[in-house]
């Protein structure tokens, strides 16, 4: 399958890195934000920062849905299951995210019925095979994940499965980018756009970034060569004074996105007036709730939601890291009180979180090189 391996060939990677060095003007400092957590993870995993000149700074964006979920939503989800006796199901990544009274796994240790599922469709199957239990799926993710939740709800309704519901925490990427650009302490030159989100939403929704904000954005794949090629394309735009939406990942991302997935999302979801993002605060029209037509499967309508609001620990500087103002290791807690084994801040919980990725790769590398 010509899809992955070709984008890891050392020869092409060396060539792309040389082109980056040629295009980067020594007198200029470039700040490029990779929006998505998958890119952050790939940058550290493949050591791509080591291939870049020191005046190209990659700023980590808000694209890890586990990281930006406020702690209060985890408390709400667990409270629903504790009050109602419903089975709490979620992806494995969610299970170690701490709420006020512990994570879903800790809730399981206290006797609650908490189960990991690989897909929302698996949670639906669980409901079909356990008609005496109510299965609640804790939905999280951007536009790549939202279609699978939409499909699950469509199948639940079509199959008349009434012992299943979704606690919806899906968020949308464009308002988050807008919030970052509106942040007064943020200076960015360009964006590396999310690859798989764009498979669903296409390239058109990013056009305002180029036209109104006058910043290049290149939709990128996740292999080392993908990311380096995207940086080459950004540097060429900046050098030529252009600001456009370009698609490096055109082997996967169609300009118009996936119409069938967008149609399903439009049928099942509606925009919330506002939603809280951990580290970024309330952002208007940045998240999805379940449409009234699917009210019978909406956990927020079926059960009483406490609506817990929890302030992050003051010492944790997740917000500054999320906005790219601080590097992960510049947070006061990084690597001491806050580690992947004992996360305090959300960015340390998920492997795609900027702090966890930095800790797993760059931090370890630094420790090795000192020894």
């Amino acid at each position, binding site marked *: 399958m010509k899809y992955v391996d070709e984008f890891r060939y050392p020869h*092409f990677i060396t060539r792309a890195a040389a082109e980056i060095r040629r295009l980067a003007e020594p007198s200029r400092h470039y700040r490029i934000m990779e929006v998505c957590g998958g890119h952050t993870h790939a940058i550290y995993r493949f050591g791509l920062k080591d291939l870049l000149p020191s005046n190209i700074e990659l700023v980590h964006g808000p694209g890890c849905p586990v990281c930006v979920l406020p702690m209060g939503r985890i408390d709400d989800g667990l409270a629903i299951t504790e009050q109602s006796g419903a089975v709490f199901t979620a992806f*494995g990544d969610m299970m*170690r995210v701490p709420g006020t009274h512990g994570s879903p796994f800790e809730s399981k240790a206290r006797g609650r019925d908490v189960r990991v599922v690989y897909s929302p*469709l698996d949670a639906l199957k669980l409901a079909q095979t356990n008609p005496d239990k109510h299965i609640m799926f804790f939905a999280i993710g*951007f536009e790549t994940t939202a279609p699978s939740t939409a*499909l699950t709800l469509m199948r639940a309704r079509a199959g008349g499965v009434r012992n299943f519901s979704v606690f919806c925490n899906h968020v949308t990427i464009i308002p988050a980018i807008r919030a970052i650009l509106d942040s007064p302490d943020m200076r960015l030159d360009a964006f590396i756009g999310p690859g798989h989100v764009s498979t669903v939403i296409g390239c058109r929704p990013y056009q305002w970034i180029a036209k109104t904000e006058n910043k290049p954005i290149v939709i990128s794949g996740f292999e080392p060569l993908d990311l380096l*090629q995207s940086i080459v394309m950004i540097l060429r735009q900046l050098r030529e004074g252009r600001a456009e939406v370009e698609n490096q990942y055109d082997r996967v991302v169609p300009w118009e996105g996936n119409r069938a997935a967008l149609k399903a999302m439009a049928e099942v979801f509606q925009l919330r007036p506002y939603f809280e993002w951990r580290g970024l605060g309330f952002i208007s029209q940045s998240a999805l709730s379940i449409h009234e037509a699917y009210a019978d499967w909406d956990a927020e309508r079926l059960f009483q939601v406490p609506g817990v609001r929890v302030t992050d620990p003051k010492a944790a500087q997740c917000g500054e890291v999320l906005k790219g103002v601080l590097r992960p290791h510049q947070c006061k807690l990084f690597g001491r009180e806050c580690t992947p084994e004992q996360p305090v801040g959300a960015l340390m919980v998920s492997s795609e979180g900027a702090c966890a990725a930095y800790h797993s790769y760059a931090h370890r590398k630094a420790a090795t090189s000192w020894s």
Partner: protein
Amino acid sequence: MGVEVHGRGETKGCGSCSDAAVPVRVLEVNGSQAVVEDRFGRRSEVAVDFVPEARPGDVLLTHLGVAIGQARETHEIRG
């Protein structure tokens, strides 16, 4: 670090991360489900509701058991 996901053709990565998706080749289509194989030869079943034109031999991008797009194999590597 988040629990890493294996199986169903997924490589390592955060399952809920919206940008974790993997390419698979279609072996067989049965209505809205398809049997697919990843590049390591692991087989699984995925929903193809969002890629209704999928045929055996096609490469799909899958996310959490659902195909979200069709991938084009590339012979062109841009430098």
